C-alpha cells in the first residue's frame, strides 16, 4: 500500500532513526533534540521523547535474555555481567526480523565468534539460533519431570566440560530424575521425533548422534 502522507513520511524519517537506528556516540536525548528541531517540540519534553529508544532497547535485551537464558547463566559464572554488556552492543543496531522476538538472535553466534576480547570458546555454539529457539520453546517452569513430550524437557548448558552441550532432565527406568547430556544433534532428533518439522538440517555427525539417542529413548526414558 502506498500513499503515506508527506507529514507522516517526514515524521518517520526522524522517528525510525531515533528509536531503531544505531546511535553510535550520540545519546538518546541528542537524537530526540534533533527530531524536535525538524518536526517541532514535543509537549512532553526531550527526555520523555527519548524514552522510546530506551523502551526499544529494553525489549530487545529482554528478548535476548529470554532466548539465551542458559548462555547468560553460564557466562555469568565465569565473567559476571559480560553477557549483558555484549547484548547491549548487539541490540544497538540489530533488530528482530519478524514478530517473533527470538529472531533478534540471528547472527549472534557469529558476532560472539568475532568478539574482542574473545568470548569463551563454547559461547558461539550455545548461541546457535536454531538450537536456542528450540530450547526456548521447550522451556517449562516445572523443570520438566515429565519426559513424554519435548516441551517438558529442561535444557541446561554443560558448564563443567568445555564443549557445547546441554543437559536434558529425564526420568530413569526406575522413575528417578536424571540429567542426560545431549548435543545439538540429539536435540534436533528429539524435536523431530516429537513432531517438529521446521528444523535445520543436521550434519552427518549430528544426525548419527541424534538417531542413536532417539533409538535409546525407549529404553532410557519413561514412555508417554
Amino acid at each position: 500500500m502506498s500513499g503515506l502522507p508527506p507529514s507522516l513520511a517526514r515524521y518517520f524519517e526522524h522517528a525510525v532513526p531515533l528509536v531503531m537506528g544505531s546511535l553510535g556516540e550520540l545519546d538518546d536525548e541528542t537524537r530526540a533534540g534533533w527530531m524536535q528541531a525538524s518536526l517541532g517540540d514535543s509537549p512532553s519534553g526531550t527526555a520523555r521523547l527519548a524514552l522510546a529508544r530506551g523502551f526499544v532497547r529494553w525489549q530487545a535485551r529482554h528478548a535476548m535474555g529470554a532466548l539465551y537464558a542458559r548462555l547468560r547463566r553460564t557466562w555469568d559464572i565465569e565473567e559476571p555481567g559480560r553477557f549483558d554488556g555484549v547484548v547491549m552492543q548487539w541490540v544497538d543496531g540489530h533488530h528482530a526480523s519478524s514478530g517473533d522476538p527470538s529472531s533478534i538472535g540471528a547472527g549472534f553466534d557469529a558476532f560472539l565468534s568475532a568478539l574482542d576480547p574473545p568470548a569463551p570458546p563454547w559461547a558461539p555454539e550455545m548461541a546457535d539460533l536454531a538450537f536456542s529457539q528450540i530450547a526456548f520453546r521447550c522451556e517449562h517452569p516445572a523443570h520438566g519431570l515429565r519426559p513424554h513430550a519435548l516441551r517438558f524437557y529442561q535444557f541446561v548448558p554443560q558448564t563443567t566440560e568445555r564443549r557445547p552441550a546441554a543437559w536434558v532432565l529425564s526420568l530413569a527406568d526406575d522413575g528417578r530424575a536424571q540429567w542426560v547430556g545431549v548435543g545439538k544433534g540429539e536435540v534436533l532428533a528429539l524435536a523431530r521425533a516429537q513432531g517438529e518439522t521446521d528444523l535445520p538440517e543436521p550434519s552427518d555427525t549430528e544426525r548419527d548422534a541424534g538417531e542413536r539417542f532417539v533409538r535409546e529413548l525407549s529404553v532410557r526414558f519413561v514412555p508417554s
Partner: protein
Amino acid sequence: MIAGVGIGFRRPHFDALPALLEARPTAVDFVEVVAETFVLGGPHEARALERIQRCVPVLAHGVSSSIGGPTPFDEDWTSALKHWLERHRLTEFTEHLSWSSAGGAHSLELLPLPFHTDSARWAAARTRELSERLERPVWLENTAFYAVQPGSEQDLSAWTTEVLERADCGLLLDLANLWVNAVNHDRDPEADLLAMPLHRVRQVHLAGSRFEEAWGVRVDDHASAIPAEVLSLYQKLMARIGPVPTLVEWDQSIPTLDVLLDEVARVRAVHSSRDLLDEAHP
C-alpha cells in the same frame, strides 16, 4: 458469542491451563492468544491451542502488524495469519493502534504516532487494508505512550475516535493503558475514558503497571495485579455500556493460575454486578 472474563494463554501455562479447563471449563469464560506465538510456533503450540479451543472460546490478538507503520504489510505474515485464523475458526482479530516496525526491522515495542488527521487517515486505511487481507473484522487497541509526538494536533481520545470512525471498526479498550497515560500526562482518567468512542467498545483489557523511577513514568508492564484505580474505571465503564468481554492481562513475571483466577474473580465481581447491569440497561 464471546462474553464474560478471560485470561491470556501464555507459554508458562501451556500445559496447566488446558488441564484446568478440561477439569473446570467455567474457570474462565474465554482465552485470548497472541497470534505471533502460534502462527510462528510449531506443533506444540498448535496442540496446546486445540486443547484450549475444545474447552472455551478463543480470541486472537496481534502485536506485530504495525498498523500505523510506514512499510507495507509483510505479505508472508498476513497470509500466514489469515490461514491460522481460518484454521482455528477465529472470527475477529485485534491489533494495537501504534507502529512497531519499519523496513523489515521490528522494534518489539508499540510506538505512538503523532496525533493528527493525516496519521488518523493513514492508520484507518491500514486497518481497513488489514481487515480485507484477513477477511474479518480488525479491532484496534489503545496503547500506552510516554511522550506526545512532535506535530500532534489532537489528544489521544479525539485521535482514537477519528481513526475508529474512519476505519469503522471496533475498539479494544485497554483501561490499564488509558490510566497509565492519564497518570503520565497529568490528565483526568475519567474524562479521558468518557471522551473515548465508547459505543465502539468490543472488548476490554485490564492489567497491572509499575512506576519506573529511573524514567519518571508509570510503565504498562502487565506484571502485577490490576490496580484499584483501573478497576474503578472499569466499574464506571461497565455502568455506562454494560458488560463486554474483559481480559485479565499478565504477560511478565507470569504468576500461577491460582493468582490469575483470583484476578478473574475480582473482575467478575464487577462485570456481573446486577447493579451495574440495571444502571446500564434501565
